[in-house]
């Protein structure tokens, strides 16, 4: 086994691993495509879920789950994004790198790793009962914001730290104040990185099920008319369809909803990738 053939062997093993990863993706997406595409129709996107003759919620479309998911993402956008982005800007720019801000970033990093079901548990206890939001769109949205807030803070920090310190020094040397430096130099140049982070966090929010499972979803929730109504969401609908009777009707609907959800996620991810690459040329340093 000379050195050359040993190298060839190992490199083929590594190629196999990479191939396996690709195969896994193709098989999973393939199954969802094959089983879900048949159900795609206009009605799917224009009707709410409705009971069939036996009462199983497999008839109609998935309009209210789609709208529910978008509403949840909107709440996350309103709550988690501003607090996360500006909070991170403050901690990086004004916090300096003393021990406190380093310790704080360690906490934020670790909170980004907390299981989403634990956020769901806290969401139920704190929001649904203690603050009496009840099982509602608001409780689900705020719980989701808990999950996403640390992710946005970490993404913003990384985007800001990608800017070389010499540019911050140049601005300060010209007599720009702290805020002017942030406003004119830090935010504009890191905007694409922050935006990418926000998009990826929102696509994570769209896919989360555990937090909303406990805090706000209902079987036949139509499109919520107020924050206190309960909400349907695509991930919950998929989970629900695997538990509904009339399985021969329910399973295809689960695959169809999964296809739509993956469509949303892939679109968001591609948008983030394109954004990142386009801006990368503009601000290479």
């Amino acid at each position: 086994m000379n050195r050359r053939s040993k190298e060839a062997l190992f490199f083929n093993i590594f190629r196999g691993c990479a191939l396996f990863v690709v195969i896994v993706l193709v098989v999973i997406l393939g199954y969802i495509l094959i089983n879900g595409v048949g159900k795609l129709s206009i009605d799917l996107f224009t009707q709410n879920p409705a009971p069939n003759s036996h009462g199983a919620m497999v008839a109609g479309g998935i309009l209210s789950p789609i709208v529910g998911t978008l509403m949840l993402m909107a709440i996350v956008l309103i709550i988690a994004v501003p607090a996360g982005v500006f909070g991170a800007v403050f901690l990086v720019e004004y916090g300096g790198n003393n021990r406190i801000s380093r310790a704080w970033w360690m906490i934020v990093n670790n909170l980004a790793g907390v299981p989403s079901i634990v956020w769901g548990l806290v969401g139920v206890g704190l929001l649904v009962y203690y603050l009496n939001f009840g099982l509602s769109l608001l409780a689900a949205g705020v719980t989701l914001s808990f999950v996403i807030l640390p992710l946005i803070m970490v993404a913003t920090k990384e985007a800001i730290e990608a800017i070389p310190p010499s540019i911050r020094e140049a601005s300060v040397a010209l007599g720009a104040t702290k805020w002017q430096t942030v406003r004119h130099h830090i935010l504009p140049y890191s905007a694409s990185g922050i935006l990418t982070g926000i998009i990826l966090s929102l696509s994570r929010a769209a896919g989360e099920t555990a937090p909303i499972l406990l805090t706000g979803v209902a079987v036949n929730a139509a499109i919520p008319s107020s924050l206190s109504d309960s909400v349907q969401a695509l991930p919950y609908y998929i989970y629900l369809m695997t538990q509904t009777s009339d399985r021969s009707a329910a399973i295809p609907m689960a695959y169809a909803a999964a296809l739509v959800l993956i469509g949303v996620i892939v679109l968001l991810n591609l948008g983030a990738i394109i954004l990142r690459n386009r801006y990368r040329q503009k601000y290479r340093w």
Partner: protein
Amino acid sequence: MSDIAVQDLNVWFDKNHALKNVNITVGGNQITAIIGPSGCGKSTFIRCINRMNDLIAGCKVEGKVIVDGKDIYDKDVDVVDIRKSIGMVFQKPNPFPKSIFENIAYAPRIHGVTDEDGNVHKASKQELAELVEWSLKRAALWDEVKDRLDKSAYNLSGGQQQRLCIARALAIKPEIILFDEPCSALDPIATAKIEDLLIDLKNDYTVLIVTHNMQQAGRVADKTAYFYLGDLIEYGETKQIFENPKQELTEQYITGRMG
């Protein structure tokens, strides 16, 4: 023109005593070179003049730096005013990732423009254009960039970028300009251009330049100060420093290189 009087200046970075009771007065309208081996505190010294050391965590400054009769380390002094009147050019060119025009117009836009009788008003488009043209001409870059002012500053060469940074500093009409080893990242031709520019700037500005290049100090500087391990060893006419230095340490440093 303005002169700078430094009185028993001491600087610490956490425990490291970077500058030890430096006393020096730098006259106006002349170029003062600050030389010395690396780590002797020459960059720290120049960064004290426009308080850039404030940015560094754990930095402690004691002593006075009097610019035009006013100590810039006084409590009630607004650091923004100091930096408006003292420009700085860094070792590695650091233009903003904006167009050439925007790079220069940035500072006047945030500070406004001061007219004859001293009051400040928002710079109009016309005034900005004139100021940009004036700065670029003053930095001897106008002819090379006048027809691509809206292009990104990153398309310029190293030497051009550094001259752009100089133009950017000139745009805020400072009294003093600090250069922290401006040519160490540049090729000989670009370095020569910068040195000619420095000599030209001497007539209107007080110029301090940190350099580890002895020949450069010899060519451009009227006065030279030699720092070693945080102490100001000797300060005087450049000719005198290089030909018959008074201090033993200065001579060792000069001959070590000259010989």
